[in-house]
């Protein structure tokens, strides 16, 4: 045990999603000593499994004014502080012949009341603005929707927390709490990489584990009634639309099409799942069919566009305390002070909410932590830009040696931090991922500076394997670079194998046509040419012995 492990932190945060990362940033900016614990990699829960929609709040305006006004405020904050993770695409709420056009006025009035700019435009102008939209639309309203990359947003928060002294650990799973009478004073942790038990001590423990917060609370001996709601989504191979498309009606299934980075995403479905299913989300064929059937109504060309993969996430909805059946579920922020609620001090839970309001959730949680620790420092996260969003995008000239598009994508992904990516050597700017323009330099930057330790983590930091080939060409190259980092080729092979299986999991529900052809080519390359199947078989034999 090193010295760092012995010390008592002001705050220990459980969970490396957007909320946990945001809380780590906020706490560290207010001068607290911070430890963040994540059981897998950052953003491996609901943070990484959603639309990537930068809500304007318009979707909630009619039914949930409070959420709507939170959204629009945070929307404007994120455009300022996280400009390198956000695209200001704007959004359309369209009324189709099957929808009630009179809903539009109610919708606009509610938006305006919540502070959301909403303007009805002529359907013809809507078609000009977004040519992929269903041409039979009867009405259209423009709202300030956008798209956000939750992976890079979370990492930017982690980077800033680290810059303010926070310690953040991945693959550290909380297995229990250390109690002194009615007070939580520390956590017991299993380190998956070193395969060892550890203990950490903190004055306040923040449960920011999303849907898994239910389990964390149980470990602490308190009860939170989480209501796991599964949402499935489909990713298409390229951008069909450049403006977010929504249906102007009561929120329903598959009625949002979001252009995100190189692709677009249709979603979501909503169905209740039992708590023991949440670690194993899969997309069913009826969900795929529903998503396509409804998606086609927004943008008809979706019916012929190649689908890349399907995925599902679990919303961390909380049944309110006086309604354990889960019928009146709020999508608002839930902050629980367990000292007041359960008589257990040193432990708070921040949950509910949305990716859009992660910063506000972090602010609320940090405010409560600070109150407990008698810290009076004001929150500055709404005004201080995140690393990567601190400017000089346009001013710096592009180098002439490296293809401009490579430099452009690096700046798109990392903002001003792209300057840290090695470019000296020709090898540094050779491509690892051809679909998404990821260079050797960027991969090494992610290994060294962005806490990427696995191929999946690398994918979240750089988009490797997220393009049309889904790892066919890039996975082996990336595994080669990873083997240099770990000085271990066996581990890289295991990584490669599990990465490809994870890619296949997302392709399986939509494996037809060109997607199937491509996955067959990939399987042939890795099994027959690279001999990965032999490798797996050998591993299995070893296990059997």
């Amino acid at each position, binding site marked *: 045990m090193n010295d760092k492990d012995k010390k008592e932190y002001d705050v220990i945060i459980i969970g490396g999603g957007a909320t946990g990362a945001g809380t780590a940033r906020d706490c560290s900016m207010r001068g607290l000593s911070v430890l963040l614990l994540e059981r897998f990699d950052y953003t491996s829960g609901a943070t990484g499994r959603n639309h990537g929609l930068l809500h304007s709040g318009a979707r909630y305006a009619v039914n949930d004014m409070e959420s709507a006004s939170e959204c629009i405020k945070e929307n404007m904050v994120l455009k300022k502080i996280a400009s390198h993770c956000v695209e200001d695409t704007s959004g359309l709420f369209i009324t189709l012949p099957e929808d009630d056009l009179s809903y539009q006025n109610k919708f606009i009035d509610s938006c305006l009341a919540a502070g959301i700019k909403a303007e009805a435009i002529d359907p013809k102008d809507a078609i000009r603005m977004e040519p992929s939209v269903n041409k039979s639309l009867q009405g259209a309203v423009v709202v300030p929707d956008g798209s956000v990359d939750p992976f890079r947003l979370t990492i930017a928060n982690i980077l800033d927390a680290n810059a303010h002294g926070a310690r953040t650990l991945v693959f550290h799973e909380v297995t229990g709490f250390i109690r002194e009478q009615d007070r939580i004073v520390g956590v017991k942790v299993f380190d998956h990489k070193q395969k060892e038990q550890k203990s950490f001590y903190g004055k306040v423990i923040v449960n920011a584990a999303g849907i898994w917060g239910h389990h964390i609370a149980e470990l602490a001996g308190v009860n939170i009634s989480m209501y796991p709601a599964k949402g499935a989504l489909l990713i298409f191979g390229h951008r069909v639309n450049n403006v977010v498309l929504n249906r102007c009606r009561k929120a329903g299934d598959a009625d949002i099409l979001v252009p995100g980075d190189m692709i677009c995403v249709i979603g979501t479905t909503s169905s209740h799942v039992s708590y023991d299913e949440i670690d194993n989300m899969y997309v069913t064929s009826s969900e795929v069919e529903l998503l396509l059937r409804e998606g086609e109504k927004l943008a008809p060309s979706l019916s*012929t*566009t*190649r689908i890349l993969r399907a995925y599902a996430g679990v919303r961390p909805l909380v049944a309110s305390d006086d309604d354990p059946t889960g019928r009146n579920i709020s999508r608002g922020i839930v902050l629980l002070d367990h000292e007041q609620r359960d008589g257990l001090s040193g432990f708070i839970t921040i949950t509910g909410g949305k990716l859009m309001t992660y910063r506000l959730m972090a602010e609320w949680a940090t405010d409560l932590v600070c109150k407990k620790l008698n810290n009076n420092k004001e929150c500055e996260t709404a005004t201080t830009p995140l690393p990567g969003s601190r400017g000089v995008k346009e001013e710096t000239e592009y180098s002439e040696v490296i*293809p401009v*598009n490579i430099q*452009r994508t690096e700046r798109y992904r990392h903002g001003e931090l792209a300057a840290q990516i090695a470019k000296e050597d020709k090898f540094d700017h050779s491509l690892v991922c051809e679909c998404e323009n990821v260079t050797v330099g960027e991969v090494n930057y992610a290994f060294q500076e962005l806490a990427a330790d696995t191929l999946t983590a690398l994918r979240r930091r750089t988009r490797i394997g997220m393009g049309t080939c889904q790892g066919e060409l890039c996975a082996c190259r990336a595994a080669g670079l990873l083997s240099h980092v770990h000085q271990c080729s066996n581990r890289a092979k295991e990584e490669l194998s599990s990465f490809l299986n994870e890619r296949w999991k997302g392709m399986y529900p939509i494996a037809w046509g060109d997607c199937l052809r491509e996955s067959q080519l990939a399987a042939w390359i890795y099994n027959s040419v690279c001999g990965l199947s032999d490798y797996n078989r050998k591993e299995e034999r070893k296990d059997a012995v």
Partner: protein
Amino acid sequence: MNLQQYNISENNFEQCIKCTVCTVYCPVIPVNPKYPGPKQAGPDGERFRLKDPDYFDVSLKYCLNCKRCEVACPSGVRIGDIIQMARIKYSHSRPKLRDRLLANTDFVGQLSTKVAPVVNFSLGLTPVKSVMDAVLGIDHRRTFPEYASQTFEHWFNQREIKKKQSAFKRHVSYFHGCYVNYNYPQLGKDLVKLMNAVGFGVHLLEKERCCGVALISNGLIEQARKQGAQNMAAIRKSVLDEKRPVIATSSTCVFTIRDEYPHLLGLDNSDIRQFTELATRFLYRLIERNEVKLVFKEDYKQKIVYHTPCHMEKLGWSVYSTSLLKMIPGVDFRMLPSQCCGIAGTYGFKSENYETSQGIGQSLFDDIGQSEADFVATDCETCKWQIEMSTFVPVMNPISILAEALDEEATMEANKEFCK
């Protein structure tokens, strides 16, 4: 519900499964590292351009439009078309004066033929070449094709030749192209001789414009579309009204009319496409159906190597030209490995492309140099310029070879039965 019943969306690039075989067949990659290659420039780049047109990469101008990537692609992705369309849609740079001069082959041709001796003499002078290089960016090392004093159309329209054509029972229209008209009328004369011998009357289209291939590659799309529409009208009149199929001697003209018109210019040619073809294919298929016979001179002896132009590779038609050549008894024939010669129409004339152009063709030039052939046969005029300039071995169109080897009297006699 038709959901996902059709795998082929409008965006043909989705069929790319990243096998990368196109990159292996691209002639530019080995000689010009600035070119990202067909996969990167085509299907991969298109995703970026759909996200943001600013991702258009100026290095796409290094694409030759040889379409060898499309021939190689096992997934049927029209890679070359994607790259051409990207240049048309996203390029901000306007065609330079040089590009306009090179692209307007018929306008420049009309002017030049009037004063051909002066033009030919001047274009051969070193000072003139240096000035053209410095001012226009047309490489000084390039040899220009000579202009003829009399255009093919002028020759053809002489009373006795034109009049003679209506005496035949069977008829075709001839799309001669700019090269035959302004630079090398002899090829057109050879075609008339050959077709007349097998009992076909040859006619010109009511109004032929340049097919527009050079306009397309130099970004002058509107003009190309206008000329294309005029050609389509003329071809329709010939094919549909007069029942005369259209044949050509230039593989690039035919390729442009058949494939580039619908794919790049949005001109629907489905009604006349199958009646517009290369003269060698037209002849070969008639011979196969026993509707035409060719009789050759006994004493014709030549050693010939055949070079497959890129657009012939794309059309898949070199087999027709080479099969006809192999029918000549005295011909010692060898097929050269199919590769790009590097000229790609106006591409190789531009100073910035000269090194790439010659680099691409080098192994072909070496092969021809060592072949001891009497001449090279090929169906493309720009390949001819490139090979003649780079090897000093003469190059002939298969039609001219057939016309030269033909026993005219005996052929006429043999075809009499078809002409009753």
